[in-house]
């Protein structure tokens, strides 16, 4: 079964073969490395850009304006902070030209903690990204979704940010998270993982995977439940699911929803679940002040107040300047499973 990074690679391959992707570029995305996480190994139209994030996003905008279909990458989302005005410009292109220029481009960037990336390789980008109108924003939590969301992102006529939770890039897919048509793990690795050492003569052999479009804007219920709704995305999804599975033995039945798309988010899906359970926890890794989960919480309070049986909650990253390197600092910075479990338990037991 594919890892998420292999899934992204297969999607980029489908993108260049069947969906018109013309460029996959950024720092180190071309040969020989094929991306610092190996996400673009074997992609024919991949190339190395100068180490210039503003140039990367600027060039992607220019390419899209001239009819190309680029996928560009900011090597770590922590370095996307120096392109904010260009993101605003790209996101605003369709609106400010009154619908004359759309930008069919994808910007992918690895996000979040979990690989001991310290202060500048652990940040989240969802709060900042969701504050820039005009972008669609997706964040997969498993290989299948990564594949399907990337295809949808590529095919979309708008700029789409593909936030890749780096802690999950190499995680094994669970049953149900496989991509149709993919061979078993070892065979796949032989086919599409570049060998170490000299790669100059290597070419990948791609499995026949289908055009599986996971619609942008659609959440999925990864674990149905009666008592509490838990809404997460990216790396927090498997964590919340694990916490929920454990709570089941205490008779607490948690419904876990994977948002999958942050903008435009699937409010109908959330509303249905929260109205049913009356209790909700939003979980993400970004710093907690002015957090995207706060928006969801605000909307929950404004629209579903009388259906709530407990105060809705948000668990997010600590509002500190970075994620520290040491284990204890890393884990103290972002939500952990025990914390998620205990808030879910409190919510389930809360009596109005």
């Amino acid at each position: 079964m594919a890892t998420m990074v292999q899934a992204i690679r297969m999607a980029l391959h489908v993108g260049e073969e069947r969906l018109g992707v013309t460029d996959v570029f950024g720092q180190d995305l071309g040969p020989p490395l094929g991306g610092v996480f190996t996400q673009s190994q074997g992609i024919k139209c991949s190339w190395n850009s100068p180490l210039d994030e503003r140039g990367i996003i600027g060039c992607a905008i220019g390419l899209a304006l001239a009819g190309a279909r680029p996928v560009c990458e900011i090597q770590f989302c922590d370095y996307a902070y120096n392109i904010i005005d260009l993101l605003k410009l790209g996101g605003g292109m369709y609106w400010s030209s009154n619908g004359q220029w759309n930008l069919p481009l994808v910007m992918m960037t690895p996000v979040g903690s979990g690989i001991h990336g310290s202060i500048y390789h652990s940040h989240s980008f969802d709060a900042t990204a969701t504050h820039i109108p005009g972008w669609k924003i997706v964040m997969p939590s498993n290989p299948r979704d990564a594949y399907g969301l990337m295809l949808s992102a590529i095919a979309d006529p708008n700029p789409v940010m593909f936030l890749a939770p780096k802690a999950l890039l190499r995680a094994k897919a669970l049953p149900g998270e496989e991509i149709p048509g993919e061979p078993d793990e070892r065979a796949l690795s032989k086919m599409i993982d570049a060998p170490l050492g000299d790669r100059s003569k290597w070419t990948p052999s791609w499995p026949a995977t289908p055009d599986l479009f996971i619609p942008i804007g659609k959440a999925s219920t990864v674990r149905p439940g009666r008592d509490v709704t838990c809404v997460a995305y990216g790396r927090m999804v498997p964590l919340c699911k694990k916490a929920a599975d454990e709570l089941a033995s205490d008779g607490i039945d948690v419904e876990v929803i994977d948002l999958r798309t942050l903008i435009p988010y699937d409010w109908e899906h959330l509303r249905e679940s929260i109205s049913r359970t009356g209790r909700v926890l939003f979980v993400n890794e970004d710093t907690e002040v002015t957090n995207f989960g706060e928006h969801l919480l605000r909307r929950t309070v404004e629209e579903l107040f009388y259906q709530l049986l407990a105060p809705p909650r948000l668990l997010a990253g600590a509002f500190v300047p970075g994620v520290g390197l040491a284990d204890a600092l890393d884990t103290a910075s972002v939500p952990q499973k025990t914390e998620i479990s205990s808030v879910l338990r409190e919510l389930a037991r809360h009596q109005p």
Partner: protein
Amino acid sequence: MSTTPIQEHFYPDTKLSPDVLIRLHELMLRSRLLEERLIRMQKQGDGYFWIGGPGEEAFNVALGLLVDKGRGPAHDYLHLHYRSSATMVAMGIDPADAMRQMKNTATDPYSGGRNFVNHYSIPEWNVVPVSSPIEVQFSMAPGTALVQKRFGGRGITIVQGGDAGTAEGDFASCLIWATRPGMELPVLMIVTNNEFGISTPAAEQHGEKRIADRGKAFGMQTAVVDGNDPETAYLGIKQAMDYVRSERRPFLLEAKVSRLYGHSSSSGANFVTGESDCLAKFEKRLEERGILSRQKMDELRVQETQALLEMSKRVRTEPQPKGPTIYDHVFAPTEVGGEAKARQDAMCAVANPAAINNKEQS
């Protein structure tokens, strides 16, 4: 590296024909009068903010006449800035459209009343949207040029900005991306140097004597032209363009220009004395050379002024955009995951209850 030696200056030995000079004059005059009309509109309350390019007509009209106008990579892409109105006039815009943008009417073809005056956007002519942040166009230009490099042909990317803006990293981005060995891009980089940021003189902003020299470190062809002389400007631009068109390599052209009405309406938009006026100088020369008489030029001025006044009166009566249209064009419609479109609309609407109410009213 570059195939021909780097040039220090242009010394054009060819002369332009009287026909071209007359055309240049007509367009320079129309551009000037349009800007003066726009300033007046703003001062009379028919618009909130003016920024534009009086003083740059000699250079910008010449540029507009030389552009290969059309849609797609076979033609030139233009990444301009807010002082480029004369280029647009020379390319053939309807001046009324600039007034519509000034008056932010729903009929403004460039932004539907959303953006400032002189912020053009014309897909049919590859004029990509002009944006307020200084210099970002220099980051985007390599993208369109890359498409043109692959496409072949003679289409080039033209990117233009002011001198103060060259301090931004985007200018360096363009130098770097346009000159990678073996991947040189067909970009004509233009700096219109009026010696000022908003109020900060050039000398307080940067140490290099000539901005064009920055291209030399990248092995680029560079030149400085007198942008206040339409003949020199025309021939200089043509020479630079021809190089980019045929060599498929970048060129950095610095044009010395004037800023006749200050920075924008925020600095008063009043005529500044002490700056060289390219139109007045050109008219004097045309008269001396016997190409146009003073009387003829005066008549033309009266005619154009009248036509622009009539236009502005008409534009004044055109409708303003409706508030709830702010939700139009946030996203381009998509076929992929079609059902998500409804979700998108629901999200926009419900997240802004006022919008729903407005929608019901309208």
